[in-house]
């Protein structure tokens, strides 16, 4: 066996995959999309956020439960199991559950099922043990240390001297780098990417190189790439700014504490000033079948393609949405030899639409995603319907099959940690979700309950992926 291949054991079967990728991507390339089954309905779930934020890819890896397959690097001899009812009770019961599910009407609400009382009791007794999501780890001797992260830190822990910092900037994307460059005192930038630039940097670079001279037809891509490159350059010139990659803030504690994970090691950090530039999460939308394995957002796509090298060549991929992420996803997929079919669901994007026609990408406008269903282990069927407000003649609905469906819209601002330490949030659906109250177009500036200054900038403030002056429509 050559050294660029490794063998995994998935559900007791050997699976051969490329070295240097994540467990989720390795299984994907072997046609295994279902990484877990959901707790109540036993629905198959696949990699969804690809950055350790959701539950869909929690697996039992080398005997340790609740390990994220999207964040774990493959290694030879690794044992991977699904940790759901299927793993507990075997495929027969799993099938029975799936059959039982089809007998319940859509909208069946189990808490309504109170009569007849005896039947209800039986039902609840049966259903409760099935909702477990894990088994305790194997006997301690059998448990190795935590599997290696998909993107392991290059140096050993750089967190020893952290204890307290003056100015911590969470997020090394354009908003975080801009905040660092504007700061007049030394600042520390932490991010989970190994180097500054954020979630889109690698994808933008590759997409722009692929488009070459055609790039001028995609002004949003060119502008975003220019902006990130110039910020990266300026950032690298500043000696007083420090960057720590492979780091994520996993909790916030009042008055001014953060729990930081660097690789697999935790460190507590106290800050005098906090700038939150942690970006946004993918929003997949509410429609029937919105948990279909193979449905992801653009941020997950960048991760899977740029970090894990997921192979998509020759595959049909449906990209639905609007704005920067739609065009970036399409260009990146095209660079990797996939066949993107684009559905533009929003207004605007006229320049890019005409360019996409020349690019020979399949294109539909004025449609939106209505439902998804799995038709084969590795194939999804999507139903698209006309947007109500679409001008022109009403198209009938459209059925498209794809390996992968990417939904690109406004991201959902990251808010959990800043909310935990006392920032007030309000729901503004147009901004993608919960955003800080009393924010302005350039973000939010305020003080925490104990007086520490906090700023929330960029996509985390709901100002969209573009430069702030273009985002935040009033």
């Amino acid at each position, binding site marked *: 066996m050559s050294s660029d291949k490794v063998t995994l054991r998935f559900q007791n079967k050997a699976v051969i995959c490329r070295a240097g990728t994540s467990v989720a991507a390795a299984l994907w390339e072997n046609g295994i999309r279902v990484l877990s089954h*959901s*707790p*109540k*309905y036993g*629905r198959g*779930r696949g990699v969804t*956020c690809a950055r350790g*934020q*959701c*539950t*869909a890819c929690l697996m039992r890896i080398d005997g*340790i439960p609740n*390990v*994220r397959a999207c964040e774990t690097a493959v290694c030879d001899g690794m044992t991977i199991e699904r940790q759901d009812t299927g793993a507990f009770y075997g495929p027969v019961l799993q099938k029975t559950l799936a059959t039982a*599910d*089809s007998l*319940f009407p*859509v*909208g069946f*609400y189990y*808490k*309504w099922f109170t009569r007849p009382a005896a039947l209800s009791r039986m039902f609840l007794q049966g259903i409760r043990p099935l909702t477990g999501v894990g088994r305790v780890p194997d006997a301690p001797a059998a448990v190795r240390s*935590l599997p290696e992260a998909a993107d392991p830190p290059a140096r050993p822990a750089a967190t020893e001297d952290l204890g307290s910092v003056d100015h911590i900037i969470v997020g090394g994307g354009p908003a975080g780098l801009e905040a660092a460059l504007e700061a007049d005192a030394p600042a520390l930038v932490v991010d989970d990417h190994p180097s500054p630039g954020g979630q889109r940097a690698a994808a933008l670079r590759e997409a722009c190189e692929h488009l070459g001279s055609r790039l001028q037809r995609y002004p949003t891509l060119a502008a975003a790439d220019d902006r990130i490159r110039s910020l990266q350059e300026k950032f690298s010139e500043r000696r007083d700014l420090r960057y720590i990659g492979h780091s*994520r*803030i*996993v*909790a*916030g*504690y*009042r*008055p001014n*504490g953060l*729990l930081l*994970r660097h690789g*697999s*090691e*935790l460190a*507590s950090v106290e800050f005098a000033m906090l700038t939150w530039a942690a970006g946004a*999460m993918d929003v997949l939308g*509410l429609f*029937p*079948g*919105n*948990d279909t394995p193979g449905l992801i957002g653009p941020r997950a796509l960048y991760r899977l393609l740029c970090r894990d090298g997921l192979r998509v060549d020759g595959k049909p991929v449906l990209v639905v949405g609007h704005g920067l992420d739609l065009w970036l996803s399409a260009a990146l997929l095209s660079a990797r030899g996939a066949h993107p079919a684009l559905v533009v669901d929003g207004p605007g994007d006229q320049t890019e639409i005409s360019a996409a026609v020349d690019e020979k990408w399949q294109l539909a406008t004025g449609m939106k995603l209505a*439902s998804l*269903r799995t038709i084969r282990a590795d194939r999804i069927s999507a139903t698209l319907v006309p947007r109500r407000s679409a001008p022109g003649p009403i198209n009938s609905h459209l059925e498209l099959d794809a390996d992968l469906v990417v939904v690109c819209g406004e991201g*959902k601002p*990251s808010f*959990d*940690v800043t*909310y*935990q330490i*006392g920032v007030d*949030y*309000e*729901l*503004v*659906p147009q901004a993608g*979700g*919960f955003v800080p109250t009393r924010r302005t177009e350039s973000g939010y500036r305020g003080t925490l309950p104990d007086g520490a200054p906090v700023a929330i900038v960029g996509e985390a403030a709901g100002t969209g992926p573009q430069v702030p002056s273009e985002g935040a429509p009033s």
Partner: protein
Amino acid sequence: MSHPKTFLCRCEDVTLEEFREAYGEGFSELESLKRYTGVGTGFCQGKGCMSEAAAELARLRGIEPGQIRLTTIRPPAEPLTFGQLAALDEPIFHAAQEEEE
């Protein structure tokens, strides 16, 4: 083949229909809906669903989205092992406890 369901909360498997039914039963606050349906109580602590749930509730009640109050989001934001937590030199948890009513 299972029915196409629309999932509001993927961690806890709460569908949009269930959320609406729970509202119909009289649960009209995000806090009580969270406790009753389980929406936002999974591993992701609502990162994936709370804004959708809140927007749906605002629609059901016919009120401005800004009037919906966010529920508590408990740390940690991702699964950690006891070993990782035990290895911390300086726990900062006491500070959080005082603040949590």
